[in-house]
C-alpha cells in the first residue's frame, strides 16, 4: 500500500506549492530540485563583500528550539539574516517533568507577535506538523513552519543540503550508489536522506548498521524496493559513490544497543582501509558534529574525499532557498 499518495501532504497547498517544510517524504521531485536550483546562486552571496539580499526584509523569523542545538540554529540564523529577515532566537528547555505552557500555547503567543516563520527543533517526532496543523486550523496558515529536526522523524533541510552536496560533486543522481552508515534507528537525518535519495532516483541505496540500530521494516521504509540493508560495512561500501556517515550518540551505550564506542568503531567506523572499497572518487559526508574515532577515523574526516565542511557552507544556501521559497520571495 502506498501511504505517501494516500495521505494529504501537510506541507503543500491545494496548488501543490510548498507552504511548510516538514519532511522530505512525499515531497515531489520538482520541488526538491527547485530548492536545490534556488540554492545555487545563494552560495555566491557568501563570497561577496556584503553578504545580504533583501528578500526577507521586514519579515520576522522565529528560531523556536525546544531542543538544544548550536550548529543548526546558527546556520538558520545566518541564512535568515543574509535574507535580511529579523531573527528572534528562542531556546525553550522542556522536559517531560517540567509542567508549564503547552507547545501550542507557546506557538499562539509567538504568533501573536506577528511571526512570519517558525523554524522548529523539537525532541518529539511530529511536533512541527502539529504546529503547522494548529496554525492552519486557527486561520494563520500564512505563518510558515520549517522543521529544523523533530525527534527521529525528519531533518529536511539537512537532507536537502546533503542532496545539494551530492549534486555538486556527482551532478547526476540516477547512476549513483549511496550508503548511509550508522544509527539509522535514532536518526532523523537518515530518514530525510533516504526519502530524498529515493525521490531523486538514486538506483542503489544502502543502509549499513548493526541490527540494534535499524528500525524494523527499514527495507520497506522508502518503498520501491531499492533499499538494501547491510550489516557488514565492507560489503556495504563496495563500489559506492557516496558514503553518508551518521553521528553515533553516546547514550546508545546505555540503552544496551551497543557494547562500546571502541567495538562500534572496529565494525562500523569509517577508516581509510574500508573507504578504499568504495569507488576511488567516492565522497564522504557527515551531518556533524563528528565523533572522531567512533563513527569516523580522523584520516577520513580530514582526508581528500571528505566534503564535510562544504556541506556546512551549502547548508546556509539551502536554508536561504527554503526560506525564500516559503516566503514567496
Amino acid at each position, binding site marked *: 500500500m502506498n501511504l505517501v499518495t494516500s495521505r494529504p501532504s*501537510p506541507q503543500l497547498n491545494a496548488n501543490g506549492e510548498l507552504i511548510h517544510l516538514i519532511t522530505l517524504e512525499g515531497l515531489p521531485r520538482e520541488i526538491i530540485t527547485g530548492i536545490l536550483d534556488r540554492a545555487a546562486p545563494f552560495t555566491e552571496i557568501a563570497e561577496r563583500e556584503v553578504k545580504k539580499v533583501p528578500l526577507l526584509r521586514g519579515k520576522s523569523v522565529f528560531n523556536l528550539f525546544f531542543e538544544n542545538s548550536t550548529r543548526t540554529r546558527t546556520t538558520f540564523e545566518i541564512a535568515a539574516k543574509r535574507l535580511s529577515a529579523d531573527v528572534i532566537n528562542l531556546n525553550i528547555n522542556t522536559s517531560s517533568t517540567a509542567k508549564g505552557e*503547552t507547545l*501550542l500555547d507557546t506557538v499562539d503567543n509567538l504568533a501573536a507577535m506577528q511571526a512570519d516563520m517558525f523554524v522548529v527543533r523539537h525532541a*518529539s*517526532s*511530529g511536533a512541527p506538523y502539529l504546529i503547522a496543523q494548529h496554525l492552519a486550523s486557527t486561520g494563520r496558515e500564512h505563518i510558515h513552519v520549517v522543521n529544523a529536526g523533530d525527534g527521529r522523524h525528519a531533518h529536511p533541510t539537512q537532507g536537502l543540503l546533503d542532496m545539494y552536496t551530492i549534486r555538486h560533486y556527482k551532478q547526476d543522481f540516477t547512476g549513483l550508489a549511496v550508503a548511509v552508515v550508522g544509527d539509522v534507528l535514532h536518526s532523523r537525518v537518515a530518514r530525510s536522506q533516504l526519502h530524498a535519495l529515493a525521490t531523486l532516483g538514486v538506483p542503489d541505496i544502502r543502509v549499513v548498521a548493526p541490527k540494534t540500530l535499524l528500525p524494523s521494516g527499514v527495507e520497506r521504509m522508502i518503498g520501491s524496493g531499492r533499499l538494501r540493508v547491510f550489516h557488514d560495512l565492507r560489503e556495504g561500501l563496495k563500489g559506492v559513490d557516496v558514503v553518508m556517515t551518521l553521528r553515533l550518540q553516546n547514550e546508545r551505550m546505555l540503552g544496551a544497543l551497543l557494547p562500546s564506542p571502541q567495538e562500534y568503531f572496529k565494525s562500523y567506523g569509517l577508516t581509510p582501509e574500508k573507504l578504499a572499497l568504495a569507488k576511488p572518487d567516492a565522497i564522504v559526508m557527515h551531518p556533524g558534529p563528528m565523533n572522531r574515532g567512533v563513527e569516523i577515523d580522523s584520516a577520513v574526516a580530514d582526508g581528500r574525499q571528505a566534503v564535510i565542511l562544504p556541506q556546512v557552507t551549502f547548508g546556509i544556501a539551502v536554508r536561504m532557498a527554503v526560506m525564500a521559497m516559503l516566503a514567496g520571495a
Partner: protein
Amino acid sequence: MRIRVKNGRVVDPARCFDSAADLFIADGRIVSLGDTPPAGFVAEGTIDATGCIVCPGLVDLSARLREPGLEYKATLESEMAAAAAGGVTTLACPPDTDPPLDEPGLVEMLRHRARLPEFANVHPVGALTVALAGQRLTEMAELAEAGCIAFGQANIAVVDTQVLLRAMQYAATFGFSVWLQAQDPYLARGGVAHDGEVAARLGLTGMPVVAETIALATLLHLARETGVRLHLQRISSAAGLEMIRAARAAGIAVTCDVAAHQLHLCENDIGWFDPHCRLDPPLRSSVDRDALRAGLADGGIDALCSDHTPVDDDAKQAPFAEAEPGATGLELLLPLTLRWAAEMKLPLAKALARVTSDPARVLGIPAGSLAPGAAADICVFDPEATFRVSRETLRSQGKNTPFLGHALKGRVRYTLIDGHLAHHDDMA
C-alpha cells in the same frame, strides 16, 4: 412502572432470539416477550420501536469514568450520560483513578455516587496491588465486599513475577477474577506505536508484538499454576490471540477482550501523527487487525469493549509520543460493533452477543439478557440511522476519538436501565 416496547425487532443474543415482538416491562424487570401483553398488564408507558432493534443494554468491560481524582478529564455525570447515549447499561471501570481503587472506602464512594437511576450499573475493578505499584496485595476480600467485581491493574504491569504469582494465588483462594493487560514493561518501554513500518517511517519508538506475547506467556503460565480465573484485556496482536487459543485448548480457564477501535484501525491510520491514534495497546498491523476481527467472530475473543478513555484536549494536543493515550468510546461501541458485523456478514444476534451476553458472562452477572425476570436494561436502536461523530454530539467529556468526522450507522433511540428511561433520542 409498566412499559410496553412495541413494534420492534427483538434480538436477545443469549437465547438466539431474533424476531418481531413487543417487550413488556414491569417494576424494572422484563415480564414477557410476545405479541400480546400478559394477563392483567396495562401499560403506563409505551415506547415505539418501529424500525428499531430492541436488545439487551450493552455491557462494557472497560470504561474509564475518571472518578475519583481525574474530574478534569471526565465526571461520573458526563460519562454516565455518554453510556446511556451509547446504549451501555452495565460497565466495569478500571482501577487507575487518582487515587487508584485500592481501598474499600473509595469503591464505596464511587458505587454510592453511581447509584442514580439513570446511571448505568457500575462494577468497579479493584486494584490488584496497592497503588497499582505491583508490590503489596490489596485487601481483596474487603474490596469485593465493597463492590469490586474483579481485580486488575488497568494497563500497568506487575513487574515482579513473584508478586504476580502471589496475587493470583490469593485471588484464586476467594474465587476472584484477575483482569490484566498483557504488556511486558521492559519491551514496551518508550513504545508509542506498533513496531513496524509506520513507526519506522515516522520516527516513533516502536512497541513490538513480543511485548504482548512474552507477557501473555507469563500470565498464562501463572494462570495454569494458580487456577485463577484470568481475563486478558485488550489484546492487540494475531500472535497473542493464537497463544490464548492454544492455552484454552490446553484447558486453562482464560477469557479475553479486544477494544472496538482495534477492529477498524491499524498502524496506517496514524497518518500524520494523529494523536487520536495514540492508543494503548497501540494500533498494530492490518494483519493483526484482521486476525482480531476474525477471532471475535469465531469466539476466540470473548467480548468487545469500548476501552473508553476520555482525555482532555490539553493532554491530547501534543506531539504524538507526548499525547496521552486513549480514546473515548462508550458512544461508539454499538456503531463500531454493527460495522464489524456488517463487514464480517455476521448475524445480528451473534454480533450483539459480544457486547451483551458474552461480557456479562465474563463479569459473572445476570446482565445482557431479555429473559423474563431479568432486569429491564434495554437498548433500542435504529440500525439504519447514520450520524457523524463530532465534538458537539459526543456527550462524553472526552472528545478524543480517531473516528471524529466519520459517519457511523446505528443510533440509540432509547436506553432503559432497570426499567427507567435513561436516554431518549428524539432526533428520529
